[in-house]
């Protein structure tokens, strides 16, 4: 059965691989590949149960895709001469824009400043996220323990979104957003 499960994933991977060439993507092949991938999930479930089956499916999909990407040199032969030329042009442009000599020093200084601010703003975002999760969970129509578990599992995701806000925005906007969320959370909890 394991062979069958792996074959199903391999077929869907080959379909996805064929459908996503660098020059143009074939939507039909890609959709068929995704359909086959979904069908293979059902096969994994029936063989190993939904819990083990889902994890095995996720892992084998990743491993087969990595193997196809890094071990099969098909990509080069498929790439047309026109695409190769475009790629080379893009590479030259990339080397010009992304070489250390061309990189702007102030831009990198800004990056390091952002790093510092993120490290400071992260804990504030955690407090805001915890407050939001607990406040939102309070209104869910479940028993207390279920509410707590939902809040606990949502926290990393809500905090992740807040961290993106903190690290991707200007410091002022990031702090204002975190402040608003903290206040909303506090209001939600005290209500």
């Amino acid at each position, binding site marked *: 059965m394991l062979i069958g499960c792996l074959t199903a994933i391999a077929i869907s991977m080959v379909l996805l691989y064929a459908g996503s060439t660098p020059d143009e993507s074939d939507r039909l092949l890609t959709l068929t590949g995704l359909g086959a991938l979904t069908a293979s999930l059902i096969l994994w479930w029936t063989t190993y149960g939904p819990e083990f089956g889902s*994890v095995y499916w996720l892992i084998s999909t990743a491993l087969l*895709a990595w193997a196809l990407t890094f071990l099969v040199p098909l990509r080069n032969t498929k790439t047309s001469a026109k695409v190769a030329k475009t790629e080379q042009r893009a590479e030259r442009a990339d080397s010009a824009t992304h*070489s250390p000599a061309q990189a702007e020093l102030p831009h990198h200084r800004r990056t390091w400043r952002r790093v510092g601010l993120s490290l400071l703003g992260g804990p504030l975002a955690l407090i805001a996220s915890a407050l939001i999760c607990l406040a939102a969970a309070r209104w869910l129509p479940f*028993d207390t*323990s279920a509410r*707590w578990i939902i809040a606990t599992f949502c926290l990393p995701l809500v905090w992740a979104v807040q*961290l993106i806000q903190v690290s991707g925005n200007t410091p002022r906007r990031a702090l204002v957003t975190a402040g608003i969320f903290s206040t909303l959370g506090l209001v939600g909890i005290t209500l």
Partner: protein
Amino acid sequence: MSKRLRLWNTATVKAMRISHSTLGLALGALLYLVCISGSVAVFYEDFERWEQPAIPEYQAYDDQSLSQAVDNHLQQLEAPPQTLYVVLPTETLPRIHLASLDEADTSTEWYVNQSGDLVAQPHAPWQEMVTNLHNHLLLPETLGLIITGSLGAALCALIISGFLAHPSLIKDLFRFRKHRSSRLRQLDLHNRLAVWGLPFHLMMGVTGAFFGLVGVLAASGAWLWYDNDRDALIADIYGPDIETVDAGGTINYDRALQQLSQIEPDATPIYLIIQNIGTDQQLLEVAATLPQRLVFSEIYRFHPDGTPLGNQGLADGPGGRQVAYSVYRLHFGHFGGIWTKLIYLVMGIGLSLICATGINVWLIRAPRATWLAPLWSGFVYAVPGSLGVAASGSLLGGSPILVFCSSLIMLTALFGWIRFSALSRRWTIGILAAVTAAIPATHLLSFSGTEFPLAVIVINLSFAGMSLALILLALRGFRPARGETANLAVLDNHQTS
């Protein structure tokens, strides 16, 4: 552009790229450390066997040997403990060991032989160091757990921002420009590993954050909903304890295990918990795994005479409880045997590579980063190297934490210097090969004359094989790819200027 999802507009992509690089630079090194140590920690049971290969191994046990083991363990204690654990042999760890906590929370643990005699106390300092490095970065436990939990959430943030910063996701699903410039090669390696590993890595981020932040949220939840009573919250989530009366006398393990095989024929007992031993309120609990279930175990309760008293509902109770109790096996890959562990190792190495290549991409285009690039390169190679040095050092009686920390500093400096001097990378690989070869050599030297179980032989052979592969890699040398020579030239320019 119209074909792309609206999710990926220019402003979003730009904001996500800024966020991704900021978070990656801020936390990449710590994430790398946690990922590498986590990949090794998956095999913690196997390394426990490796560090104490002389402990007798067996699968079969009976009522008499269990009673004998418990009696012998109790004789070592000043007072009977409130809770005594008897960890039963499993396929991955075919040994019985007993553990108890006294009132001062001091743990006493013993391995026992098949007759129930105490053999030795568990002593696996390197494995403990690796697990602690992964769990709390060798910091004080509470602080370290919060930091690693935060790293789990940061990993989720990096995954989300990386995903949203990638507008040509479908088109580039399998793109790997191996023979292009160093930056493009590193970028493709980073993106392809990350895109396909995304669901698994997200799962690791969420479950990792759960372990680290559960304490913070338990305190908050208890304050909010349980009048600050944390025990009440835990009881509500994982199910309350039960109390027995008039339950003195000898514990009938045999009958309890027979009853369990009738109640749940597919259950495999993994450990026993004896509550209030030697009192009238004795309670025997049997933790057992269930086939195709990720819950760590279901706990079946028995009167000391072996009469069933019900189960805790960890596998068939409320959905939230089942999810919360499944996190451990899901995060550490402890289900489905050795193949799952090996696959988790590959996925963990993949995540470590994502951390390394992500910072590499930034460094290649960083101005005046002459000191940072060699330092990062040195650190990336030094972490596995230091774990290897710590393994050998620990086998020779040194403190693994001390050896790991000092060798991490020294190897980072050495490998960084090799990179800075533009020496061939084969020197770095050669040193790593020597470090890896030293591990099985030290092990054989430390335990000469011991008859090793198969698992220990396989571990030693794996280290030898890894060392051989590294030697071959070093001998084969590295051909700099297009663009790499240019990077070295840039490095030279920086040095001369």
